[in-house]
C-alpha cells in the first residue's frame, strides 16, 4: 500500500474523502471521552478530582512519544526507499508531536502541583518528555534552517533516526538518574493498577487523540502537497507571467511550523 500511495496525485485522491468522516469521528470520540472523563469517572481516593487531569495528560504522553516514532519510521522510509511522501509525512507530523508534548508537559505540571507541592517535579517520565520536547524542537529547527527546504528535509530525516536510537538510551538514563536522586514517593495514577472505571475514559481519550492526529496529519500532508503544486505552477509559468513573479518566488521554501 505504501508504494501504491507513493504517487502524490493518488494520495490526494485517497485522502480527500476520509477527511470529513475522520473529523467527525474525532469530534465525537473526544466529546464522549470528555464526558466520561469529567462526569462519569469517579474521583481517586488519594488524589480526589485532580485525577481527571490524567485523562488529558496520559494520552498526550502516549502521542508525544508515538508521533516521534512515526516521524522516525517515515524518515527511515524517506532515506532508504526515497518514498516521495515520506518526508512530507514526517514534516507534517512534527509540529503535531510537539503540540502533544507541550500539552503533556503543562498538564503534567498542573497534575503534579496538588500532589507534590511544586509546579515541576523532576520525575523520570516528565523529564524524559521534556528532553523529547527538545528533540522535536531540534527537528523542526533543522527542517527550517536551510534555504533549500529539501536539504532541510533530508538532514532532519537523519536527525530523526539518530534521535529514535538515542531515545531509549535517554529514557533509560533519566530513569536511572531519577532513582539516584530519589525524591519523596511519587503517587502514580490510581495506584499500581488502573481501575477499569479509569481505564475506559482513558482509552476513549487516547483514541480521540489518535484520531485527531490522523485527521490533522492528512490535512497537513494535503496542504504540503498543494503548496508544492502551487510552487511548481508558479515556477513553470514565466512566459505567462512575464517572468517577474516567477523570479520573485522563493526557492521551494515550504515552512513547516505553520
Amino acid at each position, binding site marked *: 500500500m505504501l508504494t501504491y500511495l507513493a504517487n502524490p496525485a493518488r494520495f490526494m485522491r485517497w485522502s480527500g474523502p476520509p477527511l470529513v468522516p475522520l473529523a467527525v469521528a474525532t469530534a465525537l470520540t473526544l466529546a464522549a471521552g*470528555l464526558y466520561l472523563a*469529567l*462526569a462519569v469517572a469517579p*474521583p481517586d481516593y488519594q488524589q*480526589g*478530582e*485532580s485525577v*481527571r*487531569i490524567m485523562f*488529558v*495528560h496520559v494520552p*498526550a504522553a502516549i502521542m508525544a512519544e508515538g508521533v516521534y516514532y512515526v516521524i522516525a519510521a517515515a524518515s527511515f522510509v524517506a532515506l532508504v526507499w526515497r518514498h516521495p511522501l515520506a518526508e512530507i509525512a514526517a514534516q507534517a507530523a512534527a*509540529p*503535531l508531536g510537539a*503540540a*502533544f508534548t*507541550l*500539552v503533556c508537559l*503543562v*498538564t503534567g505540571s*498542573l*497534575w503534579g*502541583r*496538588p500532589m507534590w507541592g511544586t509546579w515541576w517535579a523532576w520525575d523520570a517520565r516528565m523529564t524524559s518528555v521534556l528532553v523529547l520536547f527538545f528533540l522535536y524542537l531540534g527537528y523542526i529547527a533543522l527542517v527550517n534552517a536551510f534555504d533549500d527546504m529539501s536539504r532541510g528535509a533530508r538532514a532532519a530525516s537523519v536527525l530523526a533516526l539518530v534521535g529514535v536510537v538515542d531515545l531509549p538510551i535517554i529514557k533509560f538514563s533519566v530513569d536511572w538518574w531519577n532513582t539516584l536522586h530519589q525524591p519523596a514517593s511519587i503517587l502514580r495514577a490510581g495506584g499500581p493498577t488502573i481501575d477499569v472505571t479509569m481505564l475506559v475514559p482513558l482509552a476513549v481519550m487516547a483514541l480521540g*487523540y489518535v484520531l*485527531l492526529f490522523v*485527521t*490533522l496529519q492528512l*490535512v*497537513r500532508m*494535503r*496542504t504540503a502537497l*498543494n*503548496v508544492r*503544486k*502551487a510552487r511548481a*505552477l*508558479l515556477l513553470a*509559468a514565466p512566459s*505567462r507571467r512575464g517572468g517577474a513573479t516567477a523570479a520573485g518566488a522563493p526557492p521551494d521554501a515550504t515552512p513547516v511550523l*505553520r
Partner: protein
Amino acid sequence: MTGLTGFQAWAAMGGYAVFVWPAYATALVVLGGAGLFSWARYRASLRDLDRLQREPRER
C-alpha cells in the same frame, strides 16, 4: 437551585478546579489551535492552488 449548586459542585472539582480546568483548557487551546491552524493553512493552500490553476486559462 439544586441543579445550579450541583453544577457548581462539579465545576469546583473538589477544590482542584484551579488545576483541572486550566489543564483541560491547555489541551483544548494547544490541540484545538493546532487543528484550526492546520485547517486554515489547508484552506489557504486550496485557494492559492485554485487561483493559480484558473489564471492561465483566463488569459
